[in-house]
């Protein structure tokens, strides 16, 4: 038997991992790539200081992009109105998660998810400066400014905060939610679908049954309201028009 055989096998596995890694990094959009960089620095040192510094660095970069163009027009066009109906979805800088904000007739809902942590938000949308509060147990909020077809702002979860710029989302991009009562247990799932600049979609979601996280299936990106099975129960994901009433 060739003495090198087993080494070649292991090496082939390593090469395959490297190939998948490169392909995944390349096909993940720019925001996620910067996120990975920041994440590494943040996690190299587990101290809390380090954890707080890194998002702030990311935030400084983001402020130049997000807030510079945002501030001036607010003063010049004070009568800017919030659209009756709008959907925004985008990436949160520095943590690999997605955020979606939707506005319907003066009410706003938001959802942040990174596949592990998820938070729903809601608030008033009478003013272009949105302030949404988290619906979960922990302290969480979203502040965002609606302007030029974008929602740009900050999401805070616990003691951490990140910035984001969410562009107008056209279906199938956007926010989806499913809920059901299964033998007395409340099953909830949320998904955000975002179109990649290079084509295709990125989606992230989370589901829980009575507050316990459960595995979440991927939505069919072409047809996200197709029924899916969450923890053994078939549910139909609803778009914002379908669930906004329930949220109020």
């Amino acid at each position, binding site marked *: *038997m060739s*003495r090198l*055989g*087993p*080494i070649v*096998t*292991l090496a*082939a*596995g390593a090469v*395959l*991992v490297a190939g*998948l*890694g490169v*392909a*995944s990094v390349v*096909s*993940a959009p720019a925001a*996620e790539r910067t*996120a990975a960089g920041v*994440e590494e620095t943040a*996690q190299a040192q587990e101290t809390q200081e380090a954890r707080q510094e890194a998002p702030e660095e990311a935030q400084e970069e983001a402020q130049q992009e997000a807030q510079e163009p945002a501030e001036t027009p607010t003063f010049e066009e004070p009568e800017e109105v919030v659209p009756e109906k709008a959907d925004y979805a985008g990436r949160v800088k520095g*943590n*690999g*998660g*997605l955020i979606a904000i939707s506005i319907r007739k003066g009410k706003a809902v938001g959802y942040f*998810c*990174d*596949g*592990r942590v998820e938070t729903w938000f809601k608030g008033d949308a009478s003013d272009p400066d949105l302030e949404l509060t988290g619906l979960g147990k922990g302290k969480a909020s979203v502040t965002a400014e609606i302007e030029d077809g974008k929602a740009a702002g900050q999401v805070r979860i616990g003691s951490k905060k990140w910035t984001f710029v969410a562009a107008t989302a056209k279906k199938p991009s956007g926010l989806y939610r499913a809920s059901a009562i299964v033998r007395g247990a409340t099953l909830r799932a949320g998904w955000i679908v975002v179109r990649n600049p290079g084509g295709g979609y*990125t*989606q*992230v*979601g989370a589901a829980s049954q009575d507050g*316990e*996280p*459960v*595995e979440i*299936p*991927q939505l*069919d990106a072409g047809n996200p309201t197709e029924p899916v*099975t969450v*923890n*053994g129960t078939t549910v139909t994901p609803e778009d914002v028009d379908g669930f906004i009433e329930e949220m109020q």
Partner: protein
Amino acid sequence: MTAIHHRHEARGSVSLLVPFLLGAVVMVGLGVYGRVHTPTGFAVGVAGFSAALPMKVWLTTGAAVLALVQVVSALSMWGKLGVRIPDAVHRWSGRLAFLLTIPVAFHCLYALGLQYDVPRVLIHSFLGCFFYGVFTMKMLALRKESTPGWTLPVIGGLAFTALVGLWLTSSFWFFTAVGLKV
């Protein structure tokens, strides 16, 4: 004679030290990576499936079937079957099984991370890390001349058991909870 035999045994076990340590490094390394790195919720995988989960479910099933081939061909190698299956069958079914698991594990660790919210996920996470540790140890042990006789059956058996456990906590769960979706 006994003394010499004894010495040989001892030396044999020592020769497993490096494979064991490297296997342990792989196992712990994967686990730590899966916990420390923020899951992306997204990873490149094998085309031709409707979504990431069906892809993983079927690749894992393929690997589990090849794992059965592994056990049968290994039994033949050790003369337990009375039939001689060519060595290449064992070697290549193993390689293929290992390569089939890579896109699956990559998605698990890169997109989802190591989690332990529910028992199934906890068992799956730990078995996954354990499997690659054991597999690494087996590959490295194969190259050693003087390993004890139990080495390959035991490590191979552990790899097989881990893979079956992984299949039960992923594909079998998916088939029963979701269905036979491609």
